[in-house]
């Protein structure tokens, strides 16, 4: 019952200098390739060290307009072109600018129940597994869930 039992070693990483458009394409391509939905990816520097995590939440937060209530109320204008123009501001933004840098990581031998505790208390859905300086895997909440509760689906 440790992290290495459930961690996914086929992980994909983003670079800090990637654009948001690249990140979005990578989310889609990875989800398609792995056959499961990817909601967040690790960001590693040129030496492979973990520098941050970028999730769909971070990107959605960034593209969300400030006065979102007004967006829900307008009926007299077509919101599509205005939203397209809003997306233009993503152009100059890089992954490093909006990624989460306050990271919680685990080791390959971290106990699964400790991982569950971290995920519950800190509202974390995925945890990078780090061995020394190197990223060795990622543990998803769903994998922990099905591993711990597998007797009910056997």
């Amino acid at each position: 019952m440790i992290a290495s039992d459930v961690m996914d070693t086929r992980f994909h990483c983003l670079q800090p200098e990637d654009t948001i458009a690249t990140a979005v394409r990578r989310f889609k391509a990875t989800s398609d390739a792995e056959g499961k939905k990817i909601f967040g990816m690790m960001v590693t520097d040129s030496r492979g060290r973990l520098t941050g995590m970028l999730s769909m939440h971070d990107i959605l937060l960034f593209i969300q307009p400030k006065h979102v209530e007004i967006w829900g109320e307008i009926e007299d204008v077509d919101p599509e072109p205005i939203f397209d123009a809003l997306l233009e501001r993503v152009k100059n933004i890089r992954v490093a600018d909006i990624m989460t840098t306050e990271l919680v990581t685990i080791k390959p031998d971290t106990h699964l129940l400790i991982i569950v505790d971290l995920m519950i208390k800190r509202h974390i859905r995925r945890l990078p597994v780090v061995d020394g300086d190197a990223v060795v895997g990622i543990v998803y909440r769903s994998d922990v869930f099905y591993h711990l509760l597998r007797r009910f689906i056997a």
Partner: protein
Amino acid sequence: MPIVEQRSVLTGLQVKDAMRRNVHRMAADGVIAACIRRMIKYKSNALLVNDPAGRPAGVVSRTDLMGAYYAGLPLETALADILAGVPRFCYPDDGLEDALDLMQQDGIHRLYVHGAGPAEVVGVIGFADIVGLLYRYCRFCAQSRRKAKGPDAALPRLAVRDVMSPLAAACNPNDPIEMVIEMLSSHRFGAVLVASAPGEPAGVVSKTDLMVAYLHGVPTSAAAESVMTAPVAACSAEALLAEAIQQMLLKDVQRLFITAADAPAVVGVLSLSDAARFRSGTCKACVASRMLAGV
């Protein structure tokens, strides 16, 4: 002497009706790079800085960061070294009119909202929040003369040209960023128009663009066009003020560049704070409709 209280659209509204509850804070030993990232991510114009005891010690605004960029300070500089403004406070149950007056008197763009304890900050309120609330409030106002008389009633409405300011300055696409910063601070602008020929808009350099350029290590000798945002958020001088406000709120911009009715040349600028001032105290339609309705 009797105190005459003018009734305006804002009368009866309180700070808590318009404030944002998510206040972004950082410790004074945090660095500029982290501060800029936070401001980009949350589209915030300023961060509240805490002292080691967790009490609010100051505010770092986009203007302060622009100053640090101009001075060539490294991105690893601690926020404590560039802290300039002290935060100004109001309370959740203060009137919105009083809050707006305080902002205008002191020439500040935002007020933080105090909670019960001395270190407790429960919200922040800026011009844009007030205009956003007003916009929604007026749209739903059942007492509006326009609503009463129907949408086709020929009532005078404020146009952009009544409120806008003339375009005071613009820069060329090849001007260096340091010149743009000088222009922004000497005119107290929030953004500078980049014009390829007089009045011909090519882009805009805002304080946010400069903040991003600073974070990405663009030298201040680089050309303005390398960091500008294009196309320019513009609107015609003949457009209705309400439409212009809607455009600013939807596009998340704090100003629109105003073009002449029949040409693409930029002749003026309309800021959200101009609009706030105009709408808040002098909304004649609203005051009159209240008198007619006997409220």
